[in-house]
């Protein structure tokens, strides 16, 4: 969308001028990001994961990863980290070709992934002297958020995160200002929930994974809490509803999908290095993803969570604890089961990512449990986020071919049964 492109261009422009404008730069993560708080202090966020995925899409990640490995990083570890380290070793030139400003603060909001901590410990050494604010998000090990978990986070915000932000930005914490920002967040969250629910329509007007990753861009990458994000999601929602009224299927890079043959729920992040080819394997078969867990990595809004201006810090805490990979495995299965049922999916597919233990460890059991619980056909493919060495087109294609074949057979059998006289 034009609006999204403009927003992103503006964001990068602001970043490239940060030193002149005196704006302070905060590096932080997508899951559990505290964009609202960063805005409340007038600072600018940078998301190393997003730089990594963009480097992947622009075919730069392979070189960055190799350079990080040459500098001592193991081939076994998360490639997002290596891509980021490699980018830094190559002058920290961001996805738009501009040099990214060095951080004034490393905000280690550590949600749903242990590697985040290792990542920022690494950056701490690469940017000596830059303060690190640590926000430890407790895991929903028991499938719920308790009072004590919330208190722990709020206390960390009050005693660790906010004081460091005040010091770096030179701005005093203003809760009224934060509450105003959170109002915009809640509106954007309402809209994005409605947008992802439009896939309940048949045909689905959008792809909730391949296009979904674009839709979550603004809400996850620094615009949540801004009027721009609300405007963007309202426009997007209107556009999608227009498609629903016209009975149109999703837009693919090769135009509108004419016939929706398979409706899928996908678990796991996508591959970025061959994103287009990867997507094509689906739309060529008439497969549309009606829901995905990856689009909830920056926040699960399906059960009603919204940022709450009446309880600013508590709701920031709840937001962090509610990100998808901070849910325990039974919760993740329940959420996926809900998607499969509510969105009337024909099949469930896991894209297992070599880099990401947070997502991947346990996926095989999750898959079997969903198969047993719902009788849904399941498929499994493997790739990586940004390491091109781990994207094997032919392997993935073979597996998907068999998966789609299985789905066709199931559909045919179901069709025959439905056609039989009662």
């Amino acid at each position, binding site marked *: 969308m034009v609006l999204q492109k403009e927003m992103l261009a503006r964001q990068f422009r602001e970043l490239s001028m940060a030193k002149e404008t005196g704006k302070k730069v905060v590096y932080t993560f997508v899951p559990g990001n505290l964009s609202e708080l960063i805005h409340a202090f007038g600072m600018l966020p940078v998301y190393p994961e997003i730089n990594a995925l963009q480097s992947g899409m622009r075919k730069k990640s392979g070189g960055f990863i190799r350079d990080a490995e040459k*500098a*001592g*990083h*193991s081939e*076994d*570890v*998360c490639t997002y*980290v290596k891509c980021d380290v490699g980018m830094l070793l190559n002058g920290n030139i961001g996805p738009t070709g501009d040099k990214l400003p060095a951080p004034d603060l490393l905000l*280690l909001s*550590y949600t749903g*992934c*242990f*590697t985040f*901590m*290792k*990542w*920022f*410990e*690494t950056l*701490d*050494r690469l940017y000596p002297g830059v303060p*690190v604010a*640590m926000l*430890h998000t*407790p*895991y929903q*090990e028991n499938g719920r958020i308790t009072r*004590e*978990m919330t*208190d*722990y986070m709020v*206390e*960390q915000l009050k*005693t*660790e995160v906010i004081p460091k932000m005040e010091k770096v930005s030179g701005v005093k914490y203003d809760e009224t200002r934060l509450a105003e920002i959170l109002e915009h967040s809640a509106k954007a969250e309402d809209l994005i929930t409605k947008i992802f629910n439009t896939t309940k329509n048949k045909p689905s007007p959008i792809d909730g994974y391949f296009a979904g990753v674009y839709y979550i861009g603004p809400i996850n990458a620094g615009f949540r809490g801004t009027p721009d994000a609300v405007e963007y999601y309202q426009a997007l929602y209107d556009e999608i509803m227009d498609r629903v009224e016209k009975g149109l299927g999703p837009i693919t890079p090769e135009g509108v999908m004419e016939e929706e043959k398979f409706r899928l729920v996908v678990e796991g992040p996508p591959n970025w290095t061959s994103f287009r080819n990867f997507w094509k394997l689906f739309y060529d078969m008439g497969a549309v993803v009606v829901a995905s867990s990856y689009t909830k990595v920056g926040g699960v809004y399906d059960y009603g969570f919204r940022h709450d201006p009446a309880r600013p810090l508590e709701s920031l805490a709840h937001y962090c604890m509610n990100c998808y*990979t901070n849910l*325990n*495995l*039974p919760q*993740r*299965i329940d959420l996926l089961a809900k998607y499969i049922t509510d969105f009337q999916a024909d099949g469930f597919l896991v894209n*297992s990512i*070599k880099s990401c*233990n*947070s997502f*991947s*460890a*346990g*996926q*095989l*059991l999750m898959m079997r*449990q969903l198969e047993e619980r719902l009788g849904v056909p399941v498929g499994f493919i*493997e790739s990586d986020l940004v390491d091109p060495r781990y994207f094997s087109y032919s392997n993935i294609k073979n597996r998907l071919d068999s998966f789609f074949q299985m789905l066709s057979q199931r559909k045919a059998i179901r069709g025959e049964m439905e056609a039989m006289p009662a």
Partner: protein
Amino acid sequence: MEAHINTLLSRCRELAFDLNFTAAKAWKKAVEGRFLVGHLPIYFPREIVHAAGGLPVGILGGGDIKQIIKGDAFYQSYICHMPRGVIEMALDDNLDDFDGFIFPSICDVIRNLSGIFKLLGKGRFVKYLDYPQNFDEGVGGTFYRREIQHVLDEMEAITGRALTTEALNHSIGLYNTNRRLLAEIYDIRQHFPWRLSYEHLYCLMRAGLVIPVEEHNDMLGQVLDYIRNNVGEAMDNIRVVISGAFCEQPPLGLIRSIEMAGCYVVDDDLILGSRWIQGDISSDTGDPIGAIVTAYLERSTFSSSVYDVDNPKEARLIELAQRRKADGILFAAPSFCDPALLDQPQLQKACDEAGIRYISFKFSENTGQFKVIKEQVGAFSDSIKLWEEPAL
């Protein structure tokens, strides 16, 4: 080696690698009301289970003993080996008599393994123990205290009785003794590593994870008495610290190969949990849980699982190597272990700056071939012996 020490060390080896946990199960059976709580690496305050009348039992994976048949169906090829063995044990009857399981927060694999145990309905409770990464008494401390309280609540549901201050102080005292004895053994070995091979020390430490602490203290005492004497014969070996093997354990054959390649292991992080707290935990307070919490916050050793920006682990590793007068460091990490492997560049850079020699290799708990690693370690040891002045 004297016969009784030989017998004791053989017994340790049996205990350490008995994946059926026969001794622990027999202990439970002997008296009505006893219970077993399995815990994964690295650290767990075992005192609280002991005080509640249970036995904390360390689960370190299937090593090269347990054949993996079902476990591989749970994990993709690019995930470390350790959880496969644990799943295999859970699906066979190895862990059947266990009443609860603790998964200490260390990485996402262990974290998600706790979910798998929940889904498989193992034990009467499954708890992912989220250690605070904030070390302020009022913030991280308060959170950690409540985490411990959850474990206490689970145990109370089993025993039907609350923990007393006296019982907890008593247990803290016993584990203090345990750590002190271990520290003394390490200190003696620093000067006279030939008095007790590292292989034996490893089995001795590992045995302590599956038997009552009283029994283990007795064993440690006996070994200590033995190595206080001038036993064994010094060899022309270099002194090394092993770093990175704190979770998935290298097979015993690999440990043996390192020694055979000419290394005295003078410190390590293999059974780190048993030596996690540096020094004693107060055992005479009216708030023993508070004492455990404070010790964790203020006197934990360094580890890949602990946020370290205010107390960088590379400085602590260098300090350890220098204190132990090590000639070099062996970075030995399990394949696909994000926490260990992501730390290595920093740690190695610090070694470079401090002039400490090191090598690194990866292993898996079921590695069967040690030839390459043995040659690598042998060449490292030779290069230090032949060409280098002692580094420190």
